[in-house]
Structures are given as structure tokens and as C-alpha cells.
């Protein structure tokens, strides 16, 4: 079994540091802007919480029958930290084991976590935007309020912009590092043959 190259081995620590930022910065931010909110409203999504103007947004959403957002309703806020912590522990093992195979498996797991997270986020947004209270005061035929996964969308009087926050970018960067290093390691091993 082949050992990792030095850059490959230390990239494990880099990825761990990147992922640790999830506990210090939000993953995602959704900005809303409307004429009567000149300063805009922001909701930030953390690994284990939703913060900032959530209460204000909840207050507005009842008009169109969207569900209110409560930290307690998200099992993701329990699973996701547990998953990432397990993944970091695995990373430490990969670092000490120092084998390419370990790294490949680690990258594979990350890819799975990443894809599942985005799918879960999309599903939540879909449900949140489509599953409306049939007795809502304002009902616009055919209208749904699913926020964009990433990017800009106009929803009634609100303009919505969704994008990664610091920890989100570093999460994405972790993926880039992992895939690049995996490719690099694989090339290196071929050279040695």
C-alpha cells in the first residue's frame, strides 16, 4: 500500500481546519430585500442553527402561509455536526495511517456528505416554498416560494439572494482540495510504477 505524498498528507490537516470553521462561521446566507426593508433581511444558516432575522422573516411568511422556521424542527442540526465531527476523526486516522487508499476513501465519503447535504437543503427549500397553508391570507395562484439553492430570484415583493457564507465557501474549497489531491496522488502513484 502506497504512502501519501507530503502535500497530500498535510492537505488532510488543511481540510480539517477548513471544516472546523463550520463552528465559527455560517455556512449559508439568504438575503431578502423589499421596498419596506431598505436595510434588507438576512438569514444565516449555521451547522447547528439558523440566525439573524429569522423571527422577522417568520413574521412575514405567515401572510403567504409558509411554515415558520425553528431551529428545533431541523434534525439536520444534530446529524450534520455529528457527521462532520466523525469525518474529521476519520481524517485524523487518514493522516496517521498515511496511505493513499485512506485518502481516496476519505474523499469518497466527503463527496457523499456534500451531495447529500445539498440534496437535503434543496428538499427543505422545496418543501418550505411549496408546502403552504391552504388558509393563508395571501394566495397567488400558481405561485410557490422556493428560495434559490444558490443565486438570485424574485419572490413577490422580495428579491432573494442565496449564497455560501465563509464556512460554506471553505466547505466547497475542502471538496476542491480533496478531489485535486486525490487526482494528484493517483497521478503520482502512476508515475512511480
Amino acid at each position, binding site marked *: 500500500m502506497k504512502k501519501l505524498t507530503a502535500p497530500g498528507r498535510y492537505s488532510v490537516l488543511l481540510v480539517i481546519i477548513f471544516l472546523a470553521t463550520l463552528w465559527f462561521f455560517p455556512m449559508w446566507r439568504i438575503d431578502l430585500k423589499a421596498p419596506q426593508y431598505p436595510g434588507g433581511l438576512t438569514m444565516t444558516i449555521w451547522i447547528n442553527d439558523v440566525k439573524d432575522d429569522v423571527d422577522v422573516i417568520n413574521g412575514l411568511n*405567515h*401572510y403567504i402561509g409558509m411554515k415558520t422556521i425553528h431551529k428545533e424542527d431541523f434534525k439536520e442540526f444534530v446529524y450534520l455536526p455529528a457527521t462532520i465531527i466523525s469525518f474529521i476523526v476519520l481524517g485524523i486516522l487518514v493522516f496517521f495511517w498515511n496511505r493513499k487508499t485512506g485518502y481516496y476513501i476519505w474523499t469518497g465519503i466527503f463527496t457523499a456528505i456534500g451531495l447529500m447535504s445539498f440534496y437535503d437543503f434543496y428538499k427543505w427549500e422545496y418543501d418550505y416554498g411549496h408546502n403552504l397553508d391552504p388558509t393563508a*391570507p395571501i394566495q397567488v395562484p400558481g405561485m410557490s416560494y422556493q428560495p434559490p439553492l444558490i443565486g438570485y430570484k424574485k419572490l413577490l415583493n422580495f428579491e432573494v439572494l442565496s449564497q455560501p457564507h465563509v464556512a460554506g465557501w471553505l466547505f466547497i474549497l475542502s471538496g476542491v482540495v480533496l478531489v485535486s489531491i486525490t487526482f494528484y496522488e493517483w497521478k503520482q502513484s502512476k508515475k512511480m510504477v
Partner: protein
Amino acid sequence: MKHYKLMLCALGAVIAGQSCKMKDTGTVVQGDAASKVYVAPGKYDEFYNFVSGGFSGQVSVYGIPSGRLLKVIPVFSVNPENGYGFSEETKPMLNTTAGFVPWDDEHHLALSQTNGEHDGRWIFANANNTPRVARINLGTFKTDEILEIPNSGGNHSSPFITENTEYVVAGTRFSVPLGEADVPISSFKENFKSVASFINVDQGTGNMKIAFQIALPGMSLDLSRAGKGPSHGWFFFSTYNTEQANTLLEVNASQKDKDFIVAVNWKKAEEYVKAGKGTKMKTRYYHNKWNEETHSATSELEQEVLVLDPAELKDMVYMIPCPKSPHGCDVDPSGEYIVGSGKLAALIPVFSFNKLMKAINDKTFEGEYQGIPVVKYEAALHGEVQKPGLGPLHTEFDGKGNAYTSFFLSSEVVKWSIKDVKVLDRVPTYYSIGHLCVPGGDTRKPYGKYVIAYNKITKDRYLPTGPELAQSAQLYDISGDKMQLILDFPTIGEPHYAQAIDAKVIKDRSVKIFDINKNKHQYVAMGEKETKVVRNGNRVDIYMTAIRSHLTPDNIEGVFVGDEVYFHITNLEQDWDVPHGFAIKHAANAELLIMPGETSTLKFVPDRTGIYPFYCTDFCSALHQEMQGYLRVSPKGSNVPLKYGIGDTAPKAVAAK
């Protein structure tokens, strides 16, 4: 033919003569005045201008240079618009020893200071009629405290302030006997006193306390200013009626060539207080305080003041002769010059603090007034501004060595240089200016830039509105050598003094909402689940919540004619600019305006049976119109059970068996 020509000439002369009018007030504005006062939509004014409301009893807030009205802060008068003085929580604010007083005449304002500069914490206001001093919180723009002043007949020389807000003063304009003594009016000379109260301000909470009162001889304390810089530790009061007349003052109080400026060494007074030289006097006065956590006011009866007698306690008070019934008594930014404005005088005397100190040290006195030394006029005089105008009233400063004095009779603002007491410029005001204000003009570091005239007479300045007109303020640019009129703006009430502060000092500290989690109101409903209706005898307490766009509960039954119903409304919103209003049909008081996170109470006593709609009065959302409910009032003694709710929990008709 010749006759014809002559006639043409005569006609020409008549026509030409028509255009030879006196100067029109409309032609005075010239140049780029519009661009100087134009604050584009969405942009902010440079200064907050706090303007006393005069007989309105309130404080109005204008933006300068635009002259736009931003807010009216209720202080001494009830305000049905937001329930001030009508809600159960605010009623104690207007409590006095004479009971609930719903109005007053407010003349002067004083922004709190630190190191002689406006710090934007509070603004103080006086009530002239029922003597009181109020403190307004500049975070919430709400009246936080009102203190009644005992032994005062009319709180006019108030609420002037020391340079670190150590004291706010309250001097009586009408001297009266101490206590509540019943004496013949003609015994003025023996029994009447002019009391100057020194109110201590707690630097943390802002809470006021009468530290001591100085019982000066009976006369009228008119206006006042604290010393600053080198003169810090002294307070100066202008006086009139040192003749001690008690009737026809118009004539009898204008007899003496000179009245006085009273110089009070308050540091000395503090020493006497410390040494126990004051006399504790039984009296009564109310002290009303607002609590931001309970969203309620409390009213407490105080029963004692400490009185100092200046005839007995030497070196504390001196008199400076000042020509002809002085009104304004203003101290320049350096603290060295004291300007006395004799409202019947044809000159302005300027006194020097250094000279005054020297005169006191050298005992250059011309005699005594009721046991108080009178300094020789010339010994304290820095100089006289000759022929400044007619009827000087008040002076403000630009921090560049210039003074600006208002002239009521000649209706003008005169700019003069303090050092050489020379007139530099004069501009007319429309009409008959009273007070004036330079932003920061009473501080050690005035901003200069503008002078604002608060005129007593309006006449033709605006579109006529019947016999009763708005008051007229005028803004002048003083950044150049020549003062330039750039704006007229109407004001509410009748402004007397006003102050202006750099918007930056206040703007970012402005409170947006009250934290609902800190709401300690006795009748708060922390969420809709905690709403309820409780009967206790004929008292009914309704714990109600308001949030866009419903009041909870919105159906209430089981209330009877003659019940005392208290609607305690908690606004559950936590977002800026989402107040809710509350009104119920036939309520004999007013509406409530409830800010986010606040609880307010409206008392309602139904006098007849029926269904009483109630609703939100402040347009809050697209469904504001739906924010309404019903109170059912049944005959006294009927057996309608107490029921309440909203939606599914609303009381339902009992199905017939």
C-alpha cells in the same frame, strides 16, 4: 399739445411712484439659498433641532437645514395621538401635588453635556406654570422623568445646565413665600423669596434630585447660564423686578436704571451643604420616573428640601448690576464673557469673569442688596456693545469669537465681535424674534454654521390659516461674513429656546425596538398562549397581544356595564417601525400606540350594553384592516360567562338541547 405732454409726464410720475414701495420681505432671499437647505429624498439632515413647544408643552424635533418636522415628543401635555397621559402607564408622569396636570408652558431646553459639549444622552425641559423639570431620553425620544419644584412660582430660568451635567437649575420667575404660606400680597418685601433650585443629575441613570435650594431675595429670576471652563463652578441668573413690586410691574418693575445678574458660586454652596449649613425644610413635591423595563411610570411624593440662605452664608452669591431688566444672560464658549441683555436697554453689557473675580477679591462693591454684596458695574464690565439694536433678548455664539443677539423690538439678529464689542452685521427677522439658536451655541465648541431665529409673530409668512397661525422659524447661513436668510419653516406651539446637536451624536443610538424578553410589565402577555381575561370584582384585566395582523383574544364576552376594563396590550413584534395601535368604541380617553416589545394599558368603562368593536389604529401590514375584534358588554348582573379567544378558541354559541 403741450398740455397733453404734461399730462403724460404726470401719469408717468404716478406710475413710477407706484413702484417706489418699502422693501418687501419676500425679496430678501437671494442666491443659492435653495441648494443650501435642500436635503434630497432619502438623505438625512445634518442637525437635530430640539425646539421647545411653549404653550403646547411638548418638544418638537426638526431636521436642520431642511426645517422638516421629525417628531413631537410629549412632555408636559397629554398627547392623545400616542396615549401619553391617557394610558395607565403614563398617567403618573403628569402627577403633581395639585393632582394630574395635563398641560404646561414649556420654555427652555438643555441638552446634557460632558466637558462642555453636547453628549446626546438627555435633553431637559422646564414647565413654567406648574413648576417642573423633565428629562427626555434621546435613545427613545421619550420623557423619562419629571420632577416637581417646590418653593417656586414659575419655573422660568430653567433647565440650564452645568458643563458636565452636574446640575440642572430651576429658578423661579415669580417670587413667592416659601412653603404654602398665606400672607398678604403687599407683604412681598418681607415674605417673598426667589428660590433657585440646584438639581443633581445621576450620571449613570440620569435621575434628578434637588440637591439644595438657594433662597434669594424676592425678585424675578429670568434666565440663566452656567459658567464653563474657567467659570465652571458658577451660575449666572438674570433678574428683573429688583424693585420688588407686587403690582403693575410693567411700570413698577421698570423704575431702576439697573437690575442684577446674580452670580452663584455653586461649588461654595456644595461646601456649605457638606458642612451642614443648610436648613431642612418640610415641603411636598412629586417625582415621577419612567421605567423602560416595566414600561410604566411611578410617582413618588418627596417631602423635604435643603434651603441655603445667601444673606447668612457669605461668599456664595454676588450681584452684578445690569441695565434695564435683563432677560438673556449668556456665557460665551471660553467661559470668560457673560452677556446681559437688558430688554429695555439700548446697549449690551458684556461682563468679564476674570474682572468679576478680581472685583470680588478686592471687595470692589457698591453696596449690598438684602445682605448680598453688589459688585461695582464698571469693575466687572468687559465692555458695552453700543447701539446694537432695540430690545436685546438672547445671545448665542459661533465659536469663532462672534456673538449673535436677538432683538425683539427691532426684529433682527445682530452679529458682533466679543473681544472688541463691535457690531459686524445685522439681518432682519420676520417678525419679532425671541430666542435664537446656533447649533452647539451654548457649548464650549459650537458647530457654528447656522443661526435659527424663533419668531414671536408670523403675520404673512405662510398661507393664512384663519386668526390662529403657526409660529415662524427662520434659518440663516452664518458661514460667511454676512448672515444670509435661507429658509422659513413653521413650528408647533410657540417655541422659546431651542438647541441643535450634530445628528451623528444621536442617530446611531436611536432605539428601534424594546426587547420583549426584558419586558417586566405586570400585565405582559409573553406570547399569545399567555393571553387571558381575569375578573376580580368589577375589574376586568385583559392580557392581550398584538402581532401582524391580529389581536389576541379578539372575541371577549362576559363583561358587564360599569365594569372597569383594562386592556393590557403587548406588542409582540420585534421589528423596527411596526407599532400597533389600539382603540375601542366609546373609550373616553384616547388610543394607545404600542411600540414593538412594549405593553400599554387602556382603561375602558362601558356605560351601556352592546358589541364594542376594537381595532389596530396604526397601519401595520397588508391585513391591518382585518386587525379587529369585538367585546360583548352585557347588563350588570346577567349570567353571560367570561369567555374569550381567537379563531378556534373564540367563544361559540351553546347548541340548543
